[in-house]
């Protein structure tokens, strides 16, 4: 069998993106959605190939390129995660294409569609590099690749003032957070003389060293990553950007960007765990994030905005996992989060085109489309954390780790906020099943979306009953 090494995956995806852009530029007559289907097929091939990747050398004997880049279990797993997310997002984008098209009045038909389908591929490359990065320089470069392609994607339907506002906010705040990142890296480098995370661990373990400068650098890096994972108090941009961005992009931001952020956070924090201040700081951030995310979600009437706050809330639960440094709990939670969030967004995109994005637009959805209503029901109960869904097991593992480490405050706050979660997620269920619809016409769902949504439903329930595959994926 042919041996594939991990960097070839990124190169393949990169080539795929360029080919799509080329075809986009020269073949003007075709239906641009073919590009999306080609991209989905290409990414699927890479996804399959990623299961046959050869392991990388261990960090101690790494040389050359492998100083920056690792292909351990965690990174391979999250490369697959990024590929899967991108595939689902591209499927959503084909559903969303009419909205993009109508947002450019007077322009040539299909203007901008090709780029809309090509950009996520580059984001995907960035995410894949990011989860492999073990050097601050490399983290910075790949983070920029992700962020810059998101700048374009977030403000893609730029004639819409809300989208434009979202784009500006994302641009300014993201640039600011990048500045924090670079400044933090500079401090850490100044204090320890290292940018490689593995050697940084050794440097910090040295008791003769003064830690305060490195700690300051870590706090600055934490600010930047807090922005990525939407942790309080760096969450200000989230509701507006999530609401304003094109919905598939919102889904991408809330899943792909966040997951990669958490992987980087885990990698970056690892050297600093020898310092007790770090954990106290993360506990505080986790508490704030849990409380703010859940309480602010309670009064929301717009579903996209609700999902934005819910994404902050879930960052809080994930941060509990970071406090306990339970990588598998975090991984499982992220997978569950991927499934249920993408499921909710996929339904939202279809319904929003017929009705709207307000929760009241979902009134009586059970009558207009039982399939979509059921899909949303599964998404919402999983987000809330009802057993036999992946979301419950995610919370279970997180709480398990927290109880094991006797993080009483986090557990107590976590349980109370779960109660809040039931309220705002079931608000959507209530709209779909209790209320009667304004319009009675059916909502059509095309074949590909129906397939994707069914697959997401089945995997949400499947992982809720049989979680072992995910747990095994990291162990081998």
């Amino acid at each position, binding site marked *: 069998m042919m041996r594939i090494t991990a960097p070839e995956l990124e190169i393949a995806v990169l080539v795929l993106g360029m080919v799509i852009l080329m075809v986009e530029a020269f073949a003007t007559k075709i239906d641009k959605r073919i590009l999306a289907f080609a991209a989905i097929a290409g990414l699927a091939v890479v996804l399959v190939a990623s299961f046959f990747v050869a392991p990388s050398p261990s960090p101690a004997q790494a040389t050359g390129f492998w100083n920056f880049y690792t292909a351990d279990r965690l990174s391979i797993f999250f490369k697959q995660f990024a590929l899967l997310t991108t595939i689902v997002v591209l499927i959503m984008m084909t559903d969303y294409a009419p909205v993009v098209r109508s947002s450019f009045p007077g322009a040539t038909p299909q203007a901008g569609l090709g780029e809309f389908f090509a950009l996520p591929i580059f984001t995907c490359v960035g995410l894949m590099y990011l989860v492999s990065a073990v050097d601050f320089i490399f983290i910075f470069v790949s983070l920029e690749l992700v962020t810059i392609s998101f700048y374009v994607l977030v403000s893609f339907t730029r004639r819409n003032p809300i989208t434009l506002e979202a784009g500006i906010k994302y641009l300014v705040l993201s640039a600011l957070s990048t500045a924090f990142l670079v400044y933090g890296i500079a401090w850490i480098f100044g204090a320890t003389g290292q940018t490689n995370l593995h050697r940084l661990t050794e440097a910090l373990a040295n008791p003769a060293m003064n830690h305060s400068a490195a700690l300051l650098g870590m706090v600055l890096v934490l600010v930047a990553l807090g922005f990525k994972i939407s942790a309080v108090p760096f969450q200000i941009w989230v509701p507006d950007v999530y609401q304003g961005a094109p919905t598939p992009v919102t889904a991408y931001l809330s899943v792909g960007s966040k997951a990669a952020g958490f992987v980087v956070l885990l990698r970056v924090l690892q050297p600093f765990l020898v310092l007790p201040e770090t954990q106290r700081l993360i506990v505080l951030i986790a508490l704030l994030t849990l409380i703010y995310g859940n309480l602010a979600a309670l009064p929301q009437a717009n579903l996209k905005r609700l999902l934005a706050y819910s994404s902050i809330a879930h960052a809080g639960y994930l941060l509990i996992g970071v406090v306990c440094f339970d990588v598998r709990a975090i991984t499982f939670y992220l997978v569950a989060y991927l499934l249920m969030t993408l499921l909710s967004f996929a339904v939202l995109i279809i319904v929003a085109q017929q009705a709207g994005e307000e929760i009241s637009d979902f009134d009586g959805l059970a009558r207009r489309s039982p399939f979509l209503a059921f899909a949303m029901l599964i998404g919402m109960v999983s987000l809330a954390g009802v*057993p036999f869904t992946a979301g*419950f097991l995610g919370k279970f593992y997180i*709480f398990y780790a927290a109880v094991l480490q006797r993080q009483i405050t986090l557990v107590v706050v976590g*349980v109370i906020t779960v109660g809040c979660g*039931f*309220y705002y997620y*079931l608000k959507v*269920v209530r709209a779909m*099943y209790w209320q009667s619809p304004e319009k009675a016409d059916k909502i059509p769902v095309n074949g590909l979306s129906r397939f994707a949504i069914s697959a997401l439903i089945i995997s949400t329930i499947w992982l809720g009953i049989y979680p072992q595959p995910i747990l095994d994926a990291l162990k081998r």
Partner: protein
Amino acid sequence: MVLFTIFCPIVAAILIMVGAPARKTALAASVLTLSAALFLFASFGYGRGDFQHVTSFAISPEWRLNFTTGIDGLSLIMVLLATIVTLAAVWFAGAIDKYENAFYACLLFISGGAIGAFASIDLFFFYAFHELALIPTFLLIGIWGSGNRVAAAWKITIYLAIGSFILLLGLILLYQSVPLASRSFDIRALQAAAGLGQISADAQRHIYLLLLIGFGILVSLFPFHTWAPEAYASAPAPAAMLHAGVLKKFGLYGLLRLAIPLLPEGARHWTTLLVILLLGNIIYVGLVTIAQKRLDWMLGYSSVMHMGYIFLGIASATILATTGAVVLIFAHGLSIALLFAIAGELRKRTGTLVLDELGGFARVMPFAGLAFGFGVFAAIGLPGFANFAGEIMIFFGAFKNGWEMDRFHIFQIATVLALWGVVISTVYMLRAYRKAFMGTTSEQWRQLADLRPALHVPVMLLVGALLCYGFFPQTFVRMVAPAFRNYLAANR
């Protein structure tokens, strides 16, 4: 066979959602489930304290998490209760005006969840199956409820969700309190570990408190009871029957299943607290019940109040009283289901359940009057009904315990006060019965139709089970007592 009783309702619910004829499928499924439960009952091996009909599937070897099901005397009685009430509830449901399929699917999900929880030997599934019923309950009250259904549905859902997560913490702590080598979600393994004294007294106290609060919220233990009357008053009758009759009993079952064998030290430590709270159930909620002006609210509060007796049986930790608690769980489940069913039929016909507006229904609806009368007398604890057997065992057992515990004779005092609860429940039950069914029939109710003959079947089923069990409680006692004998004997 145990698997069949769990999955028959769930599969039927899925079939109904996909489009099978709702009522027929639901009835067929509940009849099948009941026959399966009766088969288990008939083939039960008496005198054994262990689980029978055990099947197990590995889910996560690393966590020693298996999907293990099986029954002992205690869970068999719970399964039997669940299947009987399910059949009655489905039968009473009749035609539903909107989303008929979803209605029956929700009922069957609640039923399947309850049966699954009772028959699971694995703690994880024990918990998860119970939660399966949460969303259907929310939908049942929200879509088909009456009165202030919105507030009621939110209240029950959020209360139960928080209660369950507190319970989950307790279960996680329980799992972690055992040394790594014997860590398992299997109740039998935990019992073995507890038998070796591997669960420290300190851990037991923490776990028991979490379990008491978690289960307490689910069973409407005072002061966590306020969700119950409101939810039962607003829920459609079949949902109230299933929830008050079966699902709520999950918390009591959990305490019996976990607290007594695994956490004797924790139970002893928190006895005083539990006794005070359960007296709150009996006396305070009892008095509140007397003050109710609507039949459905009165029934809701009365179901909260009766939980106090069962808690008394559990708290006293004698074999007699604990067995009595199980008997009363079964009896109360049947009688409250019967009462809610008849109240639901009344509401269908009259559109109101305000006691002052009702009156003289026994004249126009003799069968309903008779059935409600049976329910009332059972709830009061008239000899001949199973409730009497349960209550008397609890009182005797609890009173006896008072002598041996040198703690201010707390159980004697509690028993004496709880006996007054019998008087209280007699007052409100008989008063409600008199107001609704006795007296002169006012002009507007003259034309009311009695229950259809088809509905006589579920009534007979419930009353029959109540009576047969009331006259021959010994069959059940022989079934349940072995399940406790090891622990409570070691306890003394």
